């Protein structure tokens, strides 16, 4: 197990290197705009633009730029400075991480609390009225994009902009350390909006897994032993049906920690996702590079955690 983890971590590092190299190449081959010109502002003289280009190191060949970036990253975990406002990318990302974590973790709790029970109830009586209503509803939820559902929820529920004035509006986010009540209230709509599609997807996945599991021979054995149907479902059925859900959940959390872009933009939450979006619109390579690397890190890390967890969940899985 120890050797396995070491091997996986080394692969992860290599993967992150490749990811940042590819980001660099893409930016060099297809630049969306000239960062130096953007920085210089309107009516800048060519000499000023050239000066800025030199200051940012953009006049060097891209492999030299990559080498400098890599050296800073490896030696003192330096993600560079924004072309746009000269802020340290590392501190910008870290200061936004709590907001992204708040959105992700809260959304995750909401979608699991809704998705799993709905999936189980549907699976117990497939094709019943309850099942059809829930699966029909889930199809609607999967089909509704965040920017639609988010705006509708703001229009109906948000303070200020909404009809009902119940929950915090867009841009009302404050850090949890500042005021828990405001923090919580401002995140209710983002959580529910983010969770809607995930909850629906997880409900369908849970339903499918559990229906399939309930046809397994070992479920028949559990019934033949005389176990209560409740025990057959919640112990023997769920134990097997939940395992793939854990895998999915780990991956989705990893993906969202890299930035829940749509949700953060719709609700104007200062998280990593919105930072990434701004970086792209500003052609701000260090910021793009930093957020991509962060996103890739969370995905790779989540994968590793899921794989290790799997060895504990499924006794048939061992790593050598």
């Amino acid at each position: 197990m120890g050797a396995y983890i070491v091997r996986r971590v080394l692969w992860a590092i290599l993967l992150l290197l490749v990811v940042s190299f590819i980001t660099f190449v893409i930016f060099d081959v297809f630049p969306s705009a000239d960062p130096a010109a953007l920085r210089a502002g309107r009516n800048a003289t060519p000499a000023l633009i050239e000066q800025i280009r030199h200051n940012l190191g953009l006049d060097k060949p891209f492999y030299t730029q990559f080498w400098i970036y890599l050296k800073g990253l490896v030696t003192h975990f330096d993600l560079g400075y924004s072309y746009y406002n000269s802020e340290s990318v590392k501190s910008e990302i870290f200061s936004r991480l709590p907001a992204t974590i708040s959105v992700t973790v809260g959304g995750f709790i909401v979608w699991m609390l809704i998705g799993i029970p709905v999936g189980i109830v549907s699976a117990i009586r497939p094709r019943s009225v309850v099942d059809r209503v829930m699966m029909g509803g889930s199809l609607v939820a999967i089909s509704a994009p965040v920017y639609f559902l988010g705006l509708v929820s703001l229009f109906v529920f948000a303070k200020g902009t909404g009809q009902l004035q119940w929950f915090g509006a867009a841009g009302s986010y404050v850090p949890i350390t500042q005021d828990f009540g405001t923090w919580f209230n401002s995140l209710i709509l983002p959580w529910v909006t983010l969770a809607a599609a995930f909850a629906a997807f997880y409900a369908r996945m849970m339903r499918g897994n559990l229906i399939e599991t309930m046809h397994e021979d070992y479920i028949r054995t559990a019934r033949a032993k005389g176990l209560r149907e409740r025990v057959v479902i919640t112990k023997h059925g769920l134990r097997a049906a939940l395992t793939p859900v854990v895998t999915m959940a780990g991956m989705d959390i990893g993906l969202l920690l890299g930035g829940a872009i749509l949700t953060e933009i719709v609700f104007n939450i200062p998280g990593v996702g919105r930072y990434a979006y701004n970086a792209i619109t500003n052609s701000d390579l260090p910021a793009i590079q930093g957020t991509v690397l962060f996103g890739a890190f969370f995905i790779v890390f989540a994968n590793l955690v899921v794989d290790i967890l799997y060895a504990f969940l499924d006794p048939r899985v061992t790593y050598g």
Partner: protein
Amino acid sequence: MPLLEIEDLHVSFKTIDGVVHAVEGVSLSLDARKTLGIVGESGSGKSVTAQTVIGLTRFPNATIRGRIVFDGKDLVAMSTEQLRGIRGARIAMIFQDPLSSLHPFFKVGHQIVEAIRTHEDVPRDAARRRTIEALRSVGIPGPEQRFESFPHEMSGGMRQRAMIAMALALRPDILIADEPTTALDVTVQAQVLELIQALRDDFGTAVVLITHDLGVVAQMCDDVAVMYAGRVLEQAPRETLFDEPEHPYTWGLLQSIPRLDAPRTDRLSPIAGSPPSLINVPRGCTFHPRCPYTPPPALETEPELAPSEPGHLVRCHLPVEERKRLWQSLQQEHPALR
């Protein structure tokens, strides 16, 4: 009085393709300490019959009619909650594939402990001791260590032994074994059958043995029912069935057994055709499309399961004397059948 009596059992399932008539009017009885064999091809309704006894076929799309009398009570009429008390405790069942029949995520010992504690209010460590005892009694070496094993860590034969240990831990009156050796290596098959036999003799458990292997029947059973398309075609004590079978289907089954003592040049004679669909069952005698004799009434009306002599029931339109004559000429043609 028989221990278990199945009377005119009908089981059908509504499916998208139509209604599957899996069991049509099966009547069987099992006496204490006896072994009843149910033989037939896949889809003959033998497994459905057995699973219906403990209510494992009570799916939403299933229709079950008839009576299954056990201990003076009708199991068909019983609620699932009442039936639960009988499942595992008084009628236990083991299945074809022990790997898929054991839960892959739970330790074998735990799965047996669970069976015991479902029916008896015993403390965990007492259930554990009984489980280890049960594992020992089915010949699993190192039962203390095996208690902690997961199913995938055991061999096929060991897994089936563990299933038997689970089934017998509560000393049931009846053990239903649904093709218990089909998924096992040939060398292990004999061991498992001997184990079932030994446990039957030691504990006095009656056994319903479902198989498509007439060799297994010859070795194990007191009485045999031959099933086809959801019906019993012939039913007799073992000796009668092997010495004086009267149904053309049974003859076909006996002819299709490979024999070591037959000359190598003899070819196996399988039964022509394939089993009928249970959605569109043939008119008249269900076996007539594959029957080499086909007496004329077989095309129109289904024969009754009627006694040809006490204890020997045959569902065939051929007159009894004709059947006996045909069997004798078959035996002359194929010395292996003698």
